[in-house]
């Protein structure tokens, strides 16, 4: 296993060994997991086998996070440049890109060539969507990087879930507006994930499209020009998905519709839990304060992090958006979710349970300390939340 060392003028010899070096292969092989459900079906003939991948994601992974626990490994800041230069890590993300295409095509072949019941078809489409949602995670890792190859690969892999606007809107929009009421990708206290999805999915597309329009207009080009990064990615989606319909028939239409929506909903789920209720204060200039570590929820669990390219070390990601996954660090006293992302998704899908688990955690954060004026609250729920937690009606100044 590689050990990184540095002779520091004040601290002496600093060294770090990434104990997760080979565990990161899990992020590469995670997209293969849905194939195990299909193999089990082909072996047993039971449609119940098709539910195995979903059971693994939403039941087994939360238990593994709970059982294996949190990750105390942290690369020293001084060795981050060496870790960033180690090409092994980025090659893993490159390999993940074709995996997503192969898995979707293989599942489409299975659906197109087997006579499945409607529930089995639905489970298979949701399974495919949940793993293509991981493609958005892969694109997220690469789309933040500076080199052209990685940005291109991000655009290509976004074609699988048909979400080509993601990198534009995320890097330029979400990171700029995160933890503010203006950000369609930051959820508000009292806002259910379903209400959030209806704000986030169209809001993010509009924001990404407008940003690309402004960029192209500066070049004197139409927003429909082929240089539009969003158009390029969606063009690949069209070739892929029309090709699947041509190859495997009309059954692909409901299959791909469910697949696409569920893949998008995976991103919605991540966005929902990453900044719930958190709010940046405003400076005297009227500009929001810079995003601070306490403006993101983290989940420092080993298992779900190794299948998500460290996405759950989210505070460091927002502080250093171009930093590579292997270098992301955990810090004490950050907003911490009580389980990994998959476990928290399950809780989020039951809104009353989510509020019960999370609202008190939002209010208990040291920088909020029960002060509702420091919380990003759903305007429709403001009075109700003030009545419950604030001891009365919302002050007019805050409600305005």
């Amino acid at each position, binding site marked *: 296993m590689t050990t990184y060392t540095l002779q520091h003028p004040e601290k002496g010899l600093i060294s770090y060994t990434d104990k997760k070096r080979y565990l990161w292969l899990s992020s590469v092989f995670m997209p293969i997991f849905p194939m195990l459900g299909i193999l089990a079906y082909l072996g047993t003939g039971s449609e119940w086998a098709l539910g195995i991948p979903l059971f693994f994601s939403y039941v087994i992974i939360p238990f593994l996070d709970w059982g294996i626990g949190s990750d105390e490994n942290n690369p020293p800041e001084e060795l981050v440049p060496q870790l960033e230069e180690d090409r092994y890590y980025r090659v893993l993300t490159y390999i993940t890109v074709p995996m997503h295409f192969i898995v979707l095509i293989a599942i489409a072949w299975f659906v197109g060539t087997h006579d499945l019941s409607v529930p089995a078809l639905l489970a298979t489409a949701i399974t495919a969507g949940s793993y293509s949602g991981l493609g958005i995670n892969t694109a997220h890792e690469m789309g933040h990087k500076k080199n052209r190859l990685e940005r291109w690969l991000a655009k290509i892999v976004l074609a699988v879930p048909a979400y080509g606007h993601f990198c534009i809107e995320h890097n*330029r929009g979400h990171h*700029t507006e995160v933890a503010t009421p203006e950000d369609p990708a930051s959820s508000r206290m009292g806002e259910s994930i379903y209400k959030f999805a209806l704000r986030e999915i169209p809001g993010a597309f509009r924001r990404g499209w407008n940003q690309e329009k402004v960029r192209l207009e500066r*070049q004197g080009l139409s927003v429909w020009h082929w240089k539009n990064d969003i158009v390029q990615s969606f063009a690949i989606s069209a070739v892929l998905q029309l090709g699947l319909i041509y190859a495997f028939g009309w059954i692909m239409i409901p299959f791909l519709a469910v697949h696409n929506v569920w893949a998008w909903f995976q991103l919605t789920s991540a966005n929902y839990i990453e900044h719930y209720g958190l709010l940046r204060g405003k400076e005297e200039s009227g*500009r929001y304060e810079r995003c601070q570590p306490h403006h993101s929820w983290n989940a420092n669990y080993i298992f779900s992090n190794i299948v998500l390219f460290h996405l759950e070390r989210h505070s460091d990601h*927002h*502080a250093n*958006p*171009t930093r590579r996954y292997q270098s992301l660090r955990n810090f004490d006293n950050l907003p911490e979710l009580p389980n990994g992302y998959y476990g928290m998704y399950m809780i989020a899908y039951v809104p009353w349970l989510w509020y019960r688990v999370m609202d008190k955690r939002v209010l208990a954060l040291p920088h909020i300390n029960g002060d509702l004026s420091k919380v990003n609250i759903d305007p429709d729920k403001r009075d109700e939340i003030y009545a419950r937690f604030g001891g009365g009606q919302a002050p007019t100044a805050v409600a305005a």
Partner: protein
Amino acid sequence: MAIYECPGCHYRYDEEQGDEHEGYPPSTLFDNLPEDFTCPDCGVRYKEDFKRLSDS
């Protein structure tokens, strides 16, 4: 003509070269970039955060 650097991710804006992808042609002065300019690479540093490095 000068070079300006993002203090967060070290993206460099060279006035002499501009930034073609972002739609800023060569010789576009940093001062003439939009007031809401944010770092094209990291997105979390504003125009006023950029440091002037040197003349190019």
